[in-house]
């Protein structure tokens, strides 16, 4: 399908890039990205993907917008407090770009729904705030052979890695198992600087866009870490001795996603 005149104007700064062009823009318009979590990471990721003209964006979140979210979750506004986050996120994205079809999933992901949910999408963004969800998403993406972007943020720090089936380690290769409940602080307990979600969530959107247009090097086999206080990014090479990984190794013992005990970032204050 040819781009309309309006689309040629809207996406002109993309189209002029030799790595994107009209061909890449059409790929974006035909792409389907699922964002799990409409919070600090998911908000900027969703907004940049909507602005970029990713044709179908799915957004998953069970929570309602709370006042304490607004310091960083820029897809929601003051008048959205009390509204389901997925509804608020959809309204913002649709206002930004009518080319985008937004699918909302007002629910928690768990072992019973995750595989079916991710199946119809091309790329998954993990914007969740807890380890059970992060391992669940990793395992489901490995099992369904879906690429995804992992990210985590806390205080003045962030991290990011990209999994593409067959092209490097998965999240479990690096971190094996979720830490015990409350062993590692959440952002409610420890705080997070608002712009950190903007930095890392935007990088997740960047990885999704690069994957869709098929250009550049993804963060496969690397963990990108960001320390805002030192203003230092580090691209840490991940080892490849991961044949023992329980989900993507040579002899996987995990053949279905697992529901670990939930330790959510209870963002009530």
């Amino acid at each position, binding site marked *: 399908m040819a781009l309309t005149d309006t689309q040629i104007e809207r996406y002109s700064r993309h189209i002029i890039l030799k790595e994107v062009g009209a061909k890449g823009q059409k790929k974006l318009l035909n792409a389907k990205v699922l964002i799990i*979590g409409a919070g600090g990471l998911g908000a900027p990721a969703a907004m940049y993907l909507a602005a970029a003209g990713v044709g179908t964006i799915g957004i998953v979140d069970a929570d309602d917008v709370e006042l304490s979210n607004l310091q960083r979750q820029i897809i929601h506004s003051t008048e959205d407090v009390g509204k389901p986050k997925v509804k608020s996120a959809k309204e913002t994205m649709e206002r930004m770009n009518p080319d985008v079809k937004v699918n909302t999933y007002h629910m928690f992901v768990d072992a019973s729904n995750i595989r079916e949910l991710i199946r119809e999408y091309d790329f998954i963004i993990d914007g969740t705030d807890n380890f059970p969800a992060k391992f669940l998403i990793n395992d489901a993406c490995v099992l369904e052979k879906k690429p995804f972007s992992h990210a985590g943020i806390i205080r003045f720090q962030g991290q990011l890695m990209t999994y593409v089936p067959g092209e490097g380690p998965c999240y479990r290769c690096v971190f094996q198992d979720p830490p015990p409940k409350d062993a590692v602080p959440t952002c409610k307990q420890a705080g997070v600087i608002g712009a950190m979600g903007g930095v890392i969530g935007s990088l997740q959107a960047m990885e999704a866009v690069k994957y869709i247009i098929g250009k550049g090097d993804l963060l496969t086999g690397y963990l990108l870490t960001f320390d805002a206080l030192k203003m230092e990014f580090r691209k840490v090479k991940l080892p490849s001795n991961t044949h023992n990984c329980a989900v993507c190794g040579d002899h996987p013992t995990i053949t279905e996603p697992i529901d670990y005990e939930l330790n959510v970032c209870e963002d009530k204050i």
Partner: protein
Amino acid sequence: MYITVAGNGKEVKKGLTLPELIELEQVEMPDYVTISVNDVFIDADKRADTVLKDGDTVEFLYFMGGGC
């Protein structure tokens, strides 16, 4: 001997072990930190036996669960 830890070069005593380096670097909650030496993951049960050599590169990979 000279090793590189999280991108920073430093002079350490010869024969430094991984647990000694963890102590030296004041790694918080080391049980929940993944460690690689020269781009190889070190299993948790192999840490105590890991003696560092001159020129080694060590990385500490921390859990970061937030996103909310």
